């Protein structure tokens, strides 16, 4: 179970104003909780490679990796989400202003499409059982 991304998100709560060379805002609890929820969802759905990065405006980026595929969710401080999908070096999708629920459903959809071992099980039959 990859826990380091969760710990990294939690560590952002310690960052104070001007944490990055005169830039950088504190992170509000709502954004931190949403980032934690997204990472936990990704882990539960079988993503092994994840990361997270603190934005300078209080936003949090959560990234997922699977071979050459890369998904990026930036949880903006206004509650909206920027979603990016890359295949190798190519940016295939860039969408701004999405709701947080989109991020959760997209992670679920990606996991199902890639047949990831949800909750450690290889098939949905085992998950239900």
């Amino acid at each position: 179970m990859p826990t380091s991304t969760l710990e990294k998100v939690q560590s952002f709560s310690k960052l104070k104003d001007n944490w990055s060379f005169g830039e950088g805002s504190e992170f509000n609890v709502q954004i931190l909780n949403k980032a934690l929820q997204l990472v936990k969802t990704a882990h539960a759905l079988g993503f092994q490679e994840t990361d997270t990065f603190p934005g300078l405006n209080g936003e949090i980026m959560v990234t997922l990796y699977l071979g050459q595929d890369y998904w990026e969710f930036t949880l903006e401080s206004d509650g909206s989400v920027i979603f990016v999908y890359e295949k190798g070096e190519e940016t295939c999708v860039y969408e701004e202003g999405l709701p947080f629920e989109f991020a959760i459903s997209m992670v679920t959809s990606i996991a199902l499409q890639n047949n990831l071992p949800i909750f450690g099980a290889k098939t949905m039959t085992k998950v239900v059982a």
Partner: protein
Amino acid sequence: MRLIRIINVVHYDHRKQRFASLAFKNSTGGGISVISQECILEQGRTVCHHIKTFYPPPTSSEPAIFWALEENSLPTGYRLEQQPSTSSDICHYNIEGVADKSARALMIRCQLHEFQICENGTSHTLTTEDLIS
């Protein structure tokens, strides 16, 4: 004009081997904060000395990384607004009029050798070894 963008090592994505787009994104108030290299040199300072003077890192052990980008590499429609920083740096500018999507495209295609890292008042080209330590 050559512009200096200070980069925080926390934005390095080891899996993608590049800096995340968050390192070059509009602030909530608008604009991307940069410093004029020409102005720094006119003040008789190195870039590293200038950063240390006006933009001290949160911890003394944190090395500053910077990206020197040419103004003509910015997307069409940008504007440079001179605005002294809160630390009274007169060399400070805001890049306005660049969408986050365009800024992202510029940031993520940068190679490691396009960045410099400060060490003892001078700088050298950023290497993977600098990012591991």
